[in-house]
């Protein structure tokens, strides 16, 4: 094993890691926002809205992530071009980001929904009794309380998302794993690079997971 090759490849590995993290963070933010809206729709009194959101969640939870990624890469730009009449490719990063947001939103939706439902009727009544509208009660009382309870679950889901970003190799995006693999190919040290990549994924995921568990303990006491 030749570790100097890894050291030499640090700049490109760093770029890859940056892309992976960027994709993770943006997808989590987008996924939580869309997921929260979906959760509100699922819990709303409107049958139509609730059904549509439910269908969305069940649909995305029933198809492989890899399919969603390739679908968004190949089909969505075509559809966007067809609608807008232009022929601008939207790029692998953007299409992957959208794919992750939409896909993860289905999972975040279920976490947020459980969080909202865990807030007692009494708290909601107290907010209403003070004259708050539905929107105010949600925004000022229910969601802040729900997110507090859900934070560990949301972070745990984000760690899974972090690992899943490696699927972007399918559309040729140079994320951390893809860079490591191609550097391994170039230098003929594939084993070393893959071992190193595994180590990095492990350290980040396990470290984050440990932090989440600690946070969870602090939140429950």
């Amino acid at each position, binding site marked *: 094993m030749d570790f100097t090759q890894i050291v030499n490849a640090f700049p490109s590995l760093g770029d890859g890691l940056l892309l992976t993290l960027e994709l993770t963070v943006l997808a989590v933010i987008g996924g939580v926002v869309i997921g929260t809206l979906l959760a509100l729709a699922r819990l709303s009194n409107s049958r139509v809205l609730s059904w549509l959101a439910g269908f969305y969640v069940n649909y995305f939870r029933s198809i492989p992530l890899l399919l969603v990624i390739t679908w968004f890469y190949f089909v969505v730009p075509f559809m966007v071009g067809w609608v807008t009449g232009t022929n601008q490719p939207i790029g692998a990063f953007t299409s992957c980001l959208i794919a992750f947001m939409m896909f993860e939103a289905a999972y975040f939706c279920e976490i947020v929904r459980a969080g909202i439902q865990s807030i007692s009727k*009494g*708290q909601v*009544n*107290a*907010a*209403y*009794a*003070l*004259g*708050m*509208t539905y929107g*105010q009660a949600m925004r*000022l*009382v229910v969601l*802040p*309380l729900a997110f*507090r309870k859900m934070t560990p679950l949301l972070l745990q889901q984000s760690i899974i998302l972090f690992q899943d970003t490696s699927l972007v190799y399918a559309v040729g995006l140079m994320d951390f794993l893809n860079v490591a693999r191609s550097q391994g190919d170039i230098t003929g040290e594939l084993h070393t690079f893959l071992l190193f990549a595994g180590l990095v994924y492990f350290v980040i995921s396990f470290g984050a997971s440990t932090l989440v568990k600690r946070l969870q303990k602090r939140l429950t006491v």
Partner: protein
Amino acid sequence: MISIQNVSKWYGDFQVLSDCSTEVQKGEVVVVCGPSGSGKSTLIKCVNGLEPFQAGTIVVDGTSVGSPKTDLPKLRSRVGMVFQHFELFPHLSITENLTLAQRKVLGRKDDEARRKGLALLDRVGLSAHAAKFPGQLSGGQQQRVAIARALAMDPIAMLFDEPTSALDPEMINEVLDVMVELAREGMTMMVVTHEMGFARKVANRVIFMDRGAIVEDADKDEFFGSPRSERAQAFLSKILSH
């Protein structure tokens, strides 16, 4: 101030309220009592529209609660409510609990809301706890904050749903004292409680409910002197013997 006329409510086939009628005049204190499950909480929640009802009318200060045209949030902002389990917002400090609705619902400026909130906190004897969080206070203290929070909205009437029944005995009086003072200042109050000492002290009228119906609605002296209904007599002798 509050007029309840022939109100009925069902949960599916189960009738929770049957043909309830009563009035609460301005400045009056009305105590509602009755066995568990008799519909006391449901009735009081109908008054500010937290529970819908299927028949009858409730009018609060000229506004019909059941009418679909009524701006319920606006109506509720004018009627204070205190709950059995306090329901302070645990993610907010005591000061924030006192100011949140003043700012967001009434649109008061930060410092105005703060001044008002802290003055009321002082009134319930808890100024020292302004920066704490609800979880750091005892039950009795939390309930006093909850009363202050409702008063901060300058309500025209106050509804209480068993405000002391979740409290340890030694804390009941500190909450009742605040309520007695409020009653003596002329606040219009509808109070679900089994604290008959409180009723004796400040109530104008006592309502006794059983199985969703108002069985007895009498002046205080009359109620304690000689309740007409057998069920009210039985109930009274049971809780007074404790």
